[in-house]
Each structure stands twice: as C-alpha cells, then as structure tokens.
C-alpha cells in the first residue's frame, strides 16, 4: 500500500511541477508581446549566452567533425563508399549532432549560470525588489533571456555545423586522402535546404527549452546556497534530458 502512496505522491508532484512550468512559460510568452521590450537586457543576454559560449562551441564543433570524419570514413571504407564522407559528415552534423551537442554545451556553460544568477537574485530578494518597484520580473528578467535563447541557439548551431564540416574535411581530406572536390561536391548533391532548415528549427526549439527550464528553476529556487545548488543541478539535468527526448520527438515528426 505504501508503494502506491509513494507513487501517487510522486506523480502528483510531477504533475504540479509540470503545470507550474507550463504556466511560467505561458506568462513569459504573454509578456513577450507586451511592449516595451527590454532591448538592452536582451542584448546583454545574447552576449552572455552567445558570445561567451563561442570558444566552447568552436572547440566541440571542430572535434566532433574530426571524430565523425574518422569514424564515418572507417565505416564507409568497408563498403568502398569513401566518396560519401562529405554528405555523411554534413548530414549528421546539420540534422542531428549540431543542434543537439550545441544545445547540451550551451546548457552546461550558460544554462547553469543563468539558473544560478536568477536563483541568487531570488534568495537575496532582488526579484522581490523588482516587484516592489512595480517592475515585472517576468518582463525584466525572463523575456529577454528566452528571446536571446531563440536568437542565439540557431546562430551557435550554424557555427558548430560549419566548424564541424571543416573538422571532418581536415581528417577526411588532409589525413585520410579523400578528394577535396569529392568531399564538398557530394555534400552539395546530397544536402538540401530542408536539412538545414530542420536543423535550425530544432536549435530554435532547444533555445526555448533550455532558457525556459533554466529560468524556471532559478526563479523558483529553494532557500540558501543549497537551494541554488539544487536548482542549478536540476536545471542542467532536466534541460539535457528534455533536449534528447524532444530531439527524438521532433526528428520523428520532421523526417
């Protein structure tokens, strides 16, 4: 009996948290369309999420492309199809690995920091101070962050894809001897605009997902340093899991 009670409590807790998260997102979306938009805050957030994540995106993008170049070449060589290395690397990156890995990296670097920052603002009464000044914290803190996520994620993903393709080129063409013309020529043949738009659409949805989860967890953080620490961990774990689940869901719908 106690097992059913525990299961029921857990389920009600999940439903309550999920409901609160949806209400939070609904409120943020509502305030997005109520002018004036806090442009300066949004530009600051673009810098924080985007520009400051650039180095890690360049690094992970390059090495992901290089690993792909190596592994895909090895697999294709078994079938004598090394010529398709270019499109295999490009399609893997553009459709799947670029948006997903980029979102996971930005979650680790910027998402955790966003949760901690908003969480600290909560426990030090800075959010209450905004409310007491009749300034809506949703409009001031959350809306600029979500909008910045929507702008920055596809841009970072595009950079990740590009660097990854050149990483694959470096290994496939310069080290393993695939022809330069073959690598890019076959890529041009097999990669179509729809692949690119689908990849970027995914990254936009990841931008919304990560900023939503991280802002929500920070906004509803518990008490003290432990509360912020727990909120940050939950934000990163939940964002990462949701990225992978949503990626599968979106992939099966878009294919």
């Amino acid at each position: 009996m106690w097992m059913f009670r525990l299961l029921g409590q857990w389920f009600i807790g999940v439903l309550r948290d999920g409901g609160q998260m949806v209400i939070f997102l609904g409120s943020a979306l509502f305030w997005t369309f109520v002018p004036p938009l806090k442009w300066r805050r949004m530009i600051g957030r673009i810098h924080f999420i985007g520009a400051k994540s650039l180095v890690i995106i360049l690094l992970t993008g390059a090495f992901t492309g290089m690993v792909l170049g190596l592994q895909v070449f090895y697999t294709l060589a078994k079938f004598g199809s090394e010529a398709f290395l270019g499109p295999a690397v490009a399609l893997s990156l553009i459709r799947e690995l670029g948006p997903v890995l980029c979102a996971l990296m930005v979650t680790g670097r910027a998402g955790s920091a966003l949760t901690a920052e908003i969480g600290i603002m909560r426990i030090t009464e800075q959010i209450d101070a905004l409310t007491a000044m009749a300034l809506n914290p949703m409009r001031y803190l959350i809306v600029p962050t979500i909008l910045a996520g929507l702008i920055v994620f596809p841009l970072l993903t595009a950079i990740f894809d590009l660097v990854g393709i050149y990483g694959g080129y470096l290994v496939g063409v310069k080290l393993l001897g695939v022809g330069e013309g073959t690598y890019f020529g076959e890529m041009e043949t097999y990669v179509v605009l729809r692949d690119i738009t689908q990849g970027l659409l995914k990254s936009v949805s990841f931008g919304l997902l990560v900023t939503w989860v991280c802002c929500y967890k920070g906004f509803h953080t518990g008490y003290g340093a432990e509360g912020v620490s727990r909120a940050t961990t939950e934000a990163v774990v939940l964002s990462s899991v949701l990225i992978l689940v949503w990626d599968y869901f979106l992939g099966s719908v878009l294919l």
Partner: protein
Amino acid sequence: MVEIRNLHKSFRGQHVLKGVDLQVAKGEILVIIGRSGGGKSVLLRHLMGLVRQDKGEILIDGVEISGLRGSALDQLRERFGVVFQGGALFDSMTVFENVAFPLQEKSRLPEEAIREKTLTLLKQVGLSDMGHKYPAEVSGGMRKRVALARALTMEPEIVLFDEPTTGLDPIMVNAIHHLILDLHRRVGFTAVLVSHEIPEIFGIADRVAMLHEGTVVAAGTPEAIQASANPVVRQFITGDPEGPIHPN
C-alpha cells in the same frame, strides 16, 4: 493611512500571523518589534502585496489591497519604497546605477535630470563618492544606505524598512537611525520599520507595536511601551531570559 484588520497567514501549516490588528497614521514612524521569526517581515511583505493573506483585510487610504491586480497593484506599489533586510541591491549594477534604476525604468525624466537626482540622493545618504562601486565592494552600512537612497528615489508616500540596521555596529546603527529620522523630517514619508534595536528605536519612533506569537500584544508611544506592565513587552525590552517568552 494604513489599516490592518484581523490578518491571518499560514505557511505549510504553520500559523504565522494570527489576527493582526494595526493602524499606521499618515506621516508617523511606526516601529514593529518582536522576536525573530515572529512574522514581522511577513507583515511587511503583505503591505507590499508580495504575499496574500489567508484572512483579514489590509486597507491603504480605505482601499482593500488584496483584491488589486495588474496595473492597480502596480500603482499601489509605486506609493511604497522598500528597504529590504539585506539591501536587495542589484549586484550586477554599480551603486549609482542601483539608485538611478527606478527612475530610468519608471520615470520619463531625461538622463541629465536622473543623474542630478541620483547624485543628490547619494549625497543625502553620505555616499557621493561611492557611485562607481559595486555593492560587493562597499561595507554593510553603506549597502543599507544605498538601499535607503534607492527606496526614496521615486519619492514614496510610505517607506517600509525591514531590519535596516541588522548586523551593523552600534555607531552605524545610530547613524542609520539618524539618517532615517533626518530624511523623514525633510521628505515627510510615513514609515513602518521592523527592528530589534532596543533601546535605540525608542529615539526615532512615533509609535511602537510589539508582535508576539502572531498578534500585536502592545502598541503605543515609545514612553507607553517602555512603561508597559505587559510581562511579554517587559521581558522583550529588558532582554531578560526569564519570563513568558521562552528563549527557544
């Protein structure tokens, strides 16, 4: 000006406010005293509309505030200035930016006028040369003064002080109290101040109310409170460990 009637509030089954009745007259300084965790800050948060009561009424100039939403609630909040317990300064902004922030967000003043007004406020709280520093770079007493300057930026009618002197040395406590008194005389706001600083608060209060176990057990002039025969009040102001208030 402010009237609180039979206010009740519980958090997770804990009954914090058990029928608070309190009035604040226009222009007076009302100091609320009482033990830590006794619901004083919760009472202030009700006045700001940050917490909704379970039962009872809060009337500001005769208007019940718990029913207010959206822009009506914002208009009410614009009449308040708040000095939070820890200052609640925005740590990503300098002292100057913190004080100027409400003006930049809420007023239509040109940049030069905002700058002038901010500098005047910083001068009034004795921090003219600290504007470029971040909250983390100034002392606890300075942070409280910045918070006070920020609370006064929009020329509020009512200023709420949540333990504005906690954690400060006795000299700084008196300096902050004198500053509050001085600004009160000059600006003429109504003040509700939560404090543990006894006997210092008797020097600045027009009236004192003691909150104990969720209700107001005594309210009156500082002289009346000091002369009170109520054993709870007597024990609290003398700090005697023996009496009706158990130290734990």
